[in-house]
């Protein structure tokens, strides 16, 4: 049998071929055949990739594949649809599918943030501009512009895309011994849950409210943490996580369960504020600059005549008669 890498390359090639057949404006049958081919290729890729993920719960991974397929389908339609508004709408579909994948990966906050920002803000802006820049097509047969109907150099572009995907795929999905060693040297060996417990350690207010609730103390009773390492308040004894507090004059141990783990939004928020405050500021500056830029760009452009420009620059006028300032 072919090695996994070669198989992936072949499948990617099929998918690319399918894409080409879809893109070129030809007979419907070709495009149909192309879409079938593309679909088959993508499906095969998914199978290969999931094979690499050995182990797991044994449950067939329906949702990731579903979301992925929808995203890819949407992307394909984005790039092949002749009418730009529809391309934007398909893009929204891609965004939604991507958000689904985010959810599966445990980033629920990001999923919704994605939908809100992208689909809600950016794509709407695109729609506005598309309305503004609308052009009536020359011939009334189809409602798409001539330059939208046919792609430019479909084959070369798909080849380039294929090379890109092949590279990325080889880099990401290489089942080699070496690659694994390389990969393992790049990443750390940390369990996700442990990081969450770490994050909880860094959220003293939340922890205090949990402790108060568990000890059924009122809100204004003092409570302090006792820990050998002040950065790792939440301690673990191998089976259990607990925290030691001093309340009401005595040390108590409160065990924590998985339900006490912070939610994704809390985690993201804490990380942003505690670890990347400067980046937040910079992002704000960038947004302000974008605002200014947009305002400058959107100003009404006045066509200055030659004489007006010369006057502005401090030179003398060219023409002798009084300039009416009209359009040239």
């Amino acid at each position: 049998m072919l090695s996994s890498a070669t198989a992936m390359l072949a499948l990617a090639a099929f998918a690319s071929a399918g894409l080409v057949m879809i893109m070129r404006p030809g007979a419907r049958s070709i495009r149909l055949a192309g879409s079938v081919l593309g679909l088959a290729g993508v499906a095969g890729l998914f199978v290969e990739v999931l094979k690499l993920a050995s182990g797991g719960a044994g449950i067939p991974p329906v949702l990731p594949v579903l979301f992925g397929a929808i995203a890819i389908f949407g992307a394909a339609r984005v790039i092949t649809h002749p009418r730009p508004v529809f391309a934007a709408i398909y893009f929204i579909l891609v965004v939604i599918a991507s958000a689904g994948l985010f959810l599966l990966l445990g980033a629920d906050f990001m999923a919704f943030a994605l939908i809100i920002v992208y689909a809600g803000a950016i794509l709407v802006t695109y729609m506005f501009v598309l309305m503004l820049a609308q052009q009536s097509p020359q011939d009334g047969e189809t409602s798409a512009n001539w330059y939208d109907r046919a792609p430019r150099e479909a084959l070369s572009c798909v080849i380039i895309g294929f090379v890109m995907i092949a590279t990325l795929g080889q880099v990401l999905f290489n089942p080699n011994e070496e690659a694994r060693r390389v990969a393992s040297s790049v990443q750390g060996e940390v369990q996700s849950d442990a990081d969450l417990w770490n994050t909880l350690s860094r959220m003293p207010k939340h922890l205090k409210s949990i402790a108060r609730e568990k000890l059924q103390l009122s809100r204004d009773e003092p409570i302090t943490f006792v820990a050998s390492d002040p950065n790792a308040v939440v301690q673990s004894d191998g089976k259990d996580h607990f925290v030691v507090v001093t309340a009401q004059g005595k040390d108590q141990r409160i065990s924590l369960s998985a339900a006490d783990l912070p939610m994704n939004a809390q985690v993201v928020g804490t990380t942003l504020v505690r670890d990347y405050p400067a980046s937040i500021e910079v992002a704000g500056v960038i947004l302000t600059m974008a605002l200014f830029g947009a305002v400058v760009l959107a100003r009404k452009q006045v066509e200055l005549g030659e004489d007006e420009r010369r006057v502005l620059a401090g030179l003398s006028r060219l023409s002798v008669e009084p300039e009416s300032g009209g359009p040239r």
Partner: protein
Amino acid sequence: MLNFSLLADATDHAAATAIGVIQPAVDAPDLKWAGLIIGLPALSALLCTICGAMRVRSKLPAFITIVALIGSFVLTCMLFQQLGQGAPRVVGLFEWMSFSWGNADRFQSFSAPFALYVDSLTLFWMLFVTGLGSLIAIYASEYMESDVGKGYTRFFGGVSVFLAAMATLVMASNLVVLYLGWEGVGLASYLLIGYYYSKPSAVAAAKKAFIMNRIGDLGLALGISLIWVNYGTVDYATLFSVLEAGPTAGHGDWMPGAIPFLLMLGAFGKSAQIPLFTWLPDAMEGPTPVSALIHAATMVTAGVYLIARMYPLFALHEDALATVAWVGGLTAFVAATIGMAQYDMKRVWAYSTISQLGYMFLGLGVGTTFGAGYHVFTHAFFKALLFLTAGAVMHGFAGQIDIRKLSGLRKVPGFRLVSYLALLGCLWLSALPFSAAFFSKDTILTAALGSERSDFQFLGWLGLLTAGITAYYTFRVWFRTFAGPVHFEAGDDQHDAHDDTHDAHHAPVAGLSLGAKHDFHPHGPRWAIRIPLILIAIGAVAAGWPAYNVLFFHGENWVQTMIAHSSAVAGSGEVHGQDVLGLSAHLMTSIVGSAACVIGIGIAFWMHLADRSAADRVRGALRGFILTRWIPTTLENRWYVDEIYHMMFRLPLWAGSHILHFFDKTVVDGFLVDGTGRVPVAVARLFQPLYNGVLQGYAATMAGGFVLIAGWVFWIWLRGNG
């Protein structure tokens, strides 16, 4: 007489015998005034330059030069008076070249101070150089008077430069200063031959002289370098003392043998021997005083001087001397044969000079430096006399010098003195018995004939034959020009311009056209020309006095004594030699030489005076006979030597230069330079589609770049680290 068999065993004693006893030099700082002998002509050259810059239009430059040269002559006489014969004196004038470098080697220093080495050879040479120089300068002051204000200053500047350089050459104390003088005379010769610079033939002749001299100078320079490498010194005194160690002095191996050959190459170039002789006839394009002074009396003897000065080097190598003898003998014969067929009087005397120089080299080669030196002395006088009389003729006849167009000049009013002085010169050139030249030529031929080597004997007989030919062609000229019915044609107006007779393709002198121009009246020379002529003639006669001294008064030959006390002592012995055909060599030479002279004059008389059409008949007879057909044309065309050189050297060089030019243009220029220029353009055109303004093209390129980088990082870099 040098006995070559002794050289077979190279013992020190034999070597010392071979090179003779050369007295070691003595420092004489009190003789610093002798530097003025060089200094006065140099000063006069400077003053002439100033005159030229200030556009002097009188005869002032001539006056300055004459005064300077007479001053040099007087100083030379004083020097001679003071020193006479004795140990050579070394007079340091100033430090010139001196380097030393620290090395654990033998060669740690090189020094060539500008110093004078005054021995009897030097004085001997300087006497006639400065004497003749002064007289010829006086002659030239009138001869060149038509150029006053135009080139007069330039002429005398050149003459001064020449005398300064010649003095440097002769009085040098080391080979480097000699080389300086050598180049200086070459430069002066170039400047003066090309005096009429508007004439292309004069310019070409000047270049030819200089370039041919250069070839010889290469040999001289290499020789000097090898001398330094081999013997560690270029100074005469030190060199002579080193050479007393014999043929193995210095480093031995191949160098000592090569040095004489290189030096003789330089001598042959300067003194116009085979193969470097074709420049001298062409040098007759210069004004006649130049021809007389430089190319007859003084500069061309520099080669003889070199070999005489370096005679110890030559004496140690039998082959070198033999080569010198052969070259000299052959040159004498060949030049004489060419002289028989030329129509331009100056050219005949030029070939005669080459021929007589051949005799001098023959003398050096067979081992009699005394004979060679004596012949230099006598030749200087009579050859200068001949040239100057030819100049007087040219001066009077507006540049006419073709012997076919002049006749009976001794009857032309104003030219009687010139004609008879020319007769004196011709008689001396033909070695009339008991003339000075007879004795000098006799010495050389006796040494050759009486030699033990059979090849030298052959050269002796050849020399006798050449003597006969010399007499013939000399009197051919005299009988044609100065005797016979009076007839003359004026030449072209330009002074010394003789535009014909470069190639003697004309028919021989056949009949005389009596249609002489009647409105042209020749003017005889005035006293500024006559007095030097008379003085030189007296000198030519007086040059025989040393021989008369020996013959009639049983005294000693002054020339021989002078040479015996110099570095050329090895050849200064009495010339005896073996018996030839039962008679002593001396007697045989005298008899045969005299006979040759008389026969030559007789034949010339028959063919060119008594019955002038006989020349044509003889020529026709020669051409009629199949075996001798080639003789007249070949002689008239000077043995085609110039043409041969043209074929051998100039054509290949010309072809080579064209090939290289083509190579330079197409390969170097076109291919390499332009091609290299086109490479960036081609590369730019190759990558130009990347910049066609299409946005997505740029994006594609970016994607490609990303792929490359990603691939490199993940497959090469990380793998390497992993």
